């Protein structure tokens, strides 16, 4: 399948890889926001995951240990945010920004000894004959395990939020924390667990960058991926499958513009690179233009502190 000199199959396969880190971070943040918490620290948790995963993988020689370490490191970073905002009642926006700044500085410090090292490689999954199926095989069966993990995360979060009791409790907490509290749900506990889940996902997304995508540790290597993930949650209007769509759209645009350039085509790539941000702004404008729409999409208690009354 070719359009001009571009091979669509190759494009799709590489956009899936490019989108995986932001998809992971976005799915985590989606759960956090569904619980009514706005954590702007995604970038900080991602880069902490990137450096921790890298450091642990290099030290132990095992990429899997690195991934697990990144998940734990991301969750611990998020726990700081959780304690600040849920226990000490700090402002969520300020705490989230502080978490990003802290993560960037902390990762630079931890990463100093790991600059210029090539980490142990993560093997791609071997699907045997499946990967030889024309078109489908190349798109679906030639990736590393984490690409599939990210898809499972989307499906899992969707199922959990819409089909399980605990998922519904989480949404209730996010929609109206006072009512949820009155019904006897532990608002704080639910939120702190959601925040830690978000951190774990962001950490894994970061480790995907440093262990598979690049694979190397460089200071500040997430380069704004966390912010794109945040925008993605809004773009997806807090729905897991739309987050997948959005991530592949954003990733696809990046891969497409690079490939258009690499193919030597005369194309104003500036507009293409701008478009994910323009789309996000557009979504934000549409959402905020009508109160009714916004209240349909955004969790009702998003960003509000919860004070248990009585």
């Amino acid at each position, binding site marked *: 399948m070719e359009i001009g000199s571009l091979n669509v199959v190759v494009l799709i396969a590489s956009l899936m890889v490019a989108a995986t880190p932001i998809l992971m971070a976005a799915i985590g943040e989606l759960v956090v926001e569904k619980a009514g918490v706005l954590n702007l620290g995604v970038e900080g948790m991602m880069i902490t995951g990137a450096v921790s995963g890298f450091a642990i993988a290099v030290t132990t020689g095992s990429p899997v240990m690195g991934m697990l370490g990144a998940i734990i490191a991301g969750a611990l970073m998020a726990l700081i945010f959780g304690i600040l905002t849920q226990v000490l009642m700090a402002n969520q926006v300020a705490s989230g920004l502080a978490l990003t700044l802290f993560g960037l*500085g902390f990762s*630079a410090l931890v990463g*100093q000894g790991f600059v210029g090292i090539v980490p142990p490689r993560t093997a791609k999954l071997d699907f045997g004959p499946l990967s030889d199926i024309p078109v489908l095989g190349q798109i679906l069966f030639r990736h590393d395990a984490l690409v599939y993990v990210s898809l499972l995360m989307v499906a899992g979060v969707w199922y959990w939020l819409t089909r399980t009791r605990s998922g519904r409790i989480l949404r209730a907490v996010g929609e109206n924390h006072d009512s949820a509290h009155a019904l006897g749900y532990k608002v704080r506990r639910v939120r702190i667990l959601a925040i830690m889940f978000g951190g774990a996902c962001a950490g894994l997304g970061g480790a995907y960058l440093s262990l598979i995508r690049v694979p*190397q540790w460089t*200071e500040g290597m997430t380069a704004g991926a966390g912010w794109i993930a945040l925008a993605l949650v809004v773009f997806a209007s807090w729905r897991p499958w739309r987050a997948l769509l959005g991530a592949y759209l954003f990733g696809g645009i990046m891969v497409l513009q690079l490939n258009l*350039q690499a193919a030597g085509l005369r194309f104003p790539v500036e507009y293409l690179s701008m478009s994910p941000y323009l789309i996000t702004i557009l979504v934000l404008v549409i959402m905020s233009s009508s109160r009714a729409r916004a209240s349909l999409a955004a969790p009702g208690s998003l960003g509000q502190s919860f004070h248990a009354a009585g």
Partner: protein
Amino acid sequence: MKRRQLLATSAAALGLAATAGTRGAFAQSPMKVGFIYVGALGDFGWNYAHDQARLAAQEHFGGAIETTFVEAVPEGPDAERVMTQMALSGAQMIFATSFGYGPAVNAVAARFPDVAFEHATGYMQDHPNVSLYNARFHEGRAVIGTIAGRMTETNKIGYIAAFPIAEVLMGINCAYLHAKKVNPDAEMRVVWAFTWGDPALEAAAAEALIDQGCDIIMSHTDSTAPLLVAQERGVHAFGQASDMSSFAPETHLTAIVDNWAPYYISRIQEKLDGSWTAGNVWPGLAEGEVLIAPYGPAVPAEVQEEADAMIAAISSGEYNPFTGPLNKQDGSVWLEEGQAADDGMLWGMDFYLEGIEGEIPS
């Protein structure tokens, strides 16, 4: 995003300032030399190369100088603050190592006339204590272009470029020109990354180039990510700013190495002697400021010889890499037969040479 670190490093600089106050009482105290870097010095590229030169100077002068550095300083007001802080803490010489520091360097230089400022790759020189220095990296591109032209099998050479400024265009044009000289079928595919350092994007750019059939990757960005992708995909690549062979042991062909140490050492010596005056220099292969790293195992002996001959011809001054007849991409004449480009013409470069596909983004 790098502000957190900037704060930390500025705090460290403040701490240094405090100790400088007490130590300044001794006449024999070492001369302080400050360095500011635009990115992380661990990039193994541009900033790393400057820091290697700082370390070489420190080792050369031993106790006679004391070097300090602040990394990841964004171009703009932050740079001005950092340099002001350095000057206040007693630095007598400041090396500002990024193009965009120009306005900040000149603003701080006006306030500290006794401090010697050395600005890399800049063009603003408003005060007698501002010196400019650069390196003829494009001379190195002539060498790697020759190697690329000889070694490409698909006849497509991929180039990851940062920003459409003269220096980057010089590199693209020079590499293309010399690939074309030895291989008339060679094509250049350029991807503009619009960043000096974003490893994930650079990796994606390298992959896009390889997917589009390029079998040689060169880059003018700061990270080693393109080399790692090239190694993984079994495609040849060149290192940028430092020898990157450890990242692609099998497919690293060679690298353009920025060797700032001789310049830094001679300028610091002049400052120590009291003979420092502002200058504006642009050395290259001949002076050893641009080096070609050892050839990788993949480079055949005859190609190595050809590359060595190119280095020799440029170093001796008998060959200017930009010698006419050369046309611009639109077919208009840039250099007449036998005409060599002077420095002014090079700095005015805002076009591709004839034969390069694609458009330079604005």
